[in-house]
């Protein structure tokens, strides 16, 4: 366990002179942003070997799938191990052979008792912890391992290949993750799996840069193979006069609406790939070139079994909507056995691999402050994340008034008022309401009556805005 702050040796165990030069180049570039964090892949030689072995296995089993109503033998074997070796599942009981009777677990279970999801036989030596707001806005601390983090890359490489795009790595910046929010960690890093190629996480928000023109210069100079981000951050990226054209845009975290996807694709002259991914197990599904509207996302991981369950925990047949439920994955410190994601879709088995159809879970939402600033839902989640709320909901009416509802709202009123005032201003019209999350099933956490185009018109701090249908600059 590291009692002291990490050193670069801890962050980058496989740093070479070349990747070290690249790292410094990204940090010390004259137009670099004000990076506020340091982060490495923490991949050792043994770890890298495991990631490469995973890639080989993924390629070998790329066509391995299952048919509707089947449970693959490997998933049953995974269940057997989880039921015997993971405290949470052991307590809930069940038999691997009777897979359909194994009780489902939830994000709430993981949020409340993450330690109980760590298998007995997993070493804690390389434990790392990610936190995620999740759909409930309540932080979930997810135990994981550096190897599992880097295993995202071979899967991503496979997804990109389906679109005719390579992820070559080596002597370049491979990935820039763009954010557009008030506050987020930003850093430059290198990936041993990508042969020392650069990876940068940055914030497009103006206050993250020293000079207004730095952002465009830096991104053009970095010339990443791909950008990753979410629909809202890509919307901001699209406003910049970038000359560099990436190979692809990879969108995660929120629903990517078809109109925006098409506009982004035109703007950047590359495929825009929608990915369904969660902190708990990373990459689950991705859009394919062949996927038609309404958007379907093809399951991509050979080691993840996906079921659709109804509210009672019964498996639903192909075509019926229910909760996406996961078994398996590659995180050695987190067993996922019939794990309900909180997201909803139906499965379609008509293609070579199962496809999630009509995925619904985290629609992106932007709110307007009285002084014309835009606050996106990630900022709200971050601002309220430390509060002990099981769930909350924020709605903005056409007149700009906000209603924040949660259970036991009177008890939380003062604690909620402070961060909301910081985000929206002291004079924002904000009301509090009691909210019963059981009353209407699935909670859409963030909603607004202000149309996006209108939002953009009322916003003062940006010149151009585009959303659904309007043209990108």
């Amino acid at each position, binding site marked *: *366990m590291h009692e002291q702050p*990490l050193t670069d040796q801890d*962050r980058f165990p496989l740093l070479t002179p070349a990747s070290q030069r690249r790292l410094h180049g990204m940090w010390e570039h004259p137009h670099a942003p004000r990076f506020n964090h340091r*982060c*490495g*892949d*923490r*991949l050792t030689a043994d770890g890298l070997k495991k990631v490469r072995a995973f890639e080989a296995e993924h390629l070998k089993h790329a066509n391995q799938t299952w048919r509707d109503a089947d449970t693959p033998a490997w998933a049953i074997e995974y269940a057997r191990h989880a039921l015997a070796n993971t*405290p*949470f599942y*052991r*307590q*809930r*009981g*069940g*038999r691997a052979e*009777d897979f359909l*009777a*194994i*009780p*489902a677990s939830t994000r*709430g*279970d993981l*949020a*409340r*008792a993450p*330690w*109980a999801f760590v298998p*007995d036989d997993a070493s*804690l030596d390389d*434990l*790392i*912890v*990610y*936190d995620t707001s999740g759909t409930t806005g309540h932080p979930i*601390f997810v*135990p*994981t391992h*550096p190897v599992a*983090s*880097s295993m*995202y*890359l071979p899967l*991503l490489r496979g997804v990109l290949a389906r679109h005719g795009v390579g992820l070559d790595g080596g002597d370049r910046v491979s*990935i820039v*993750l763009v*954010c557009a929010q008030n506050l987020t960690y930003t*850093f430059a890093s290198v*990936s041993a799996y990508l042969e020392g190629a650069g*990876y940068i996480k940055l914030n497009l928000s103006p206050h993250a840069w020293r000079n207004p023109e730095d952002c465009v210069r830096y991104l053009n100079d970095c010339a990443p193979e791909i950008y*990753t*981000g*979410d629909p809202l951050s890509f919307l901001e990226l699209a406003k910049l006069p970038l000359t560099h054209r990436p190979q692809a845009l*990879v969108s*995660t*975290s929120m629903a990517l609406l078809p109109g925006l996807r098409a506009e982004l694709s035109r703007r950047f002259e590359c495929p825009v790939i929608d990915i369904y*991914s969660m*902190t708990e197990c*990373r990459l689950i599904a991705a859009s394919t070139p062949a996927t038609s509207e309404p958007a379907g996302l093809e399951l991509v991981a050979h080691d993840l079994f996906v079921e659709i369950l109804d509210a009672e*925990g019964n498996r639903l047949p192909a075509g019926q909507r229910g909760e996406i439920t996961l078994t398996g994955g590659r995180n050695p410190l987190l067993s996922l056995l019939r794990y309900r994601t909180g997201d909803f879709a139906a499965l379609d088995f008509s293609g070579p691999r199962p496809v999630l159809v009509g995925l619904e879970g985290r629609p992106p939402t932007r709110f307007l402050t009285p002084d014309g600033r835009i606050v996106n839902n990630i900022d709200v989640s971050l601002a309220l994340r430390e509060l002990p709320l099981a769930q909350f909901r924020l709605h903005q009416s056409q007149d700009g008034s906000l209603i924040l509802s949660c259970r036991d709202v009177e008890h939380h009123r003062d604690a909620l008022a402070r961060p909301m005032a910081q985000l929206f201003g002291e004079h924002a019209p904000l009301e509090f309401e009691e909210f019963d999350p059981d009353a209407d099933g699935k909670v859409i956490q963030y909603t607004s009556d202000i149309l996006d185009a209108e939002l953009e018109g009322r916003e003062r701090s940006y010149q151009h805005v585009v959303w659904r249908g309007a043209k990108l600059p």
Partner: protein
Amino acid sequence: MTSEGPPLEALARRLAESPADFLTSSIHVTALAADLLRDLGQQTPPDDLWAMLAPTKGRGAAARSAANRLQLISLAVWLLSDPWFARNATSASSVWLLLAIGLDPLAEIIDATSAISDADRREELVRFILWSLELRPAGETHAQAQDRLTNLDSVERVRVVRETRAAEERARQIREAMAAKAAEEAAASYGRE
């Protein structure tokens, strides 16, 4: 090192007189446990209370074994509600570890109803709970208490005692490691989730 606890007989009698409600499926084990922990000085229920003690929606054998575990936990709560424990400043965190995970190995081999009706099982549960909290029955030495705990039945009990200690220790280690690592920088992830 164990400390002297309450008399075995008093606790066994308390167990024999457990309210019938404690074995019904409608009992809210989470509420019982939260009340007990509050009595022991923990004002806010543990974060993992609901996840560890929630009634399961499983079916068949899975549901039966999960229900038996929760019944055994209910009985432990009843036993630990004896005023002796609050009076003697029993650690709420140790009690929570016992309820959350410590009874799991025992629940695999004893039936909760027999822990009320059968004198040997009663004694076993009492001894097990005292041992788990590093207590020994009043009037017994540490060696006597240890000997009687593992000799009540069979070799299987020795395994249960060993597994319980290991499970509690493991849970403690993971929680400590996660708390330490949550504040530390993680490894790079390449997209947003």
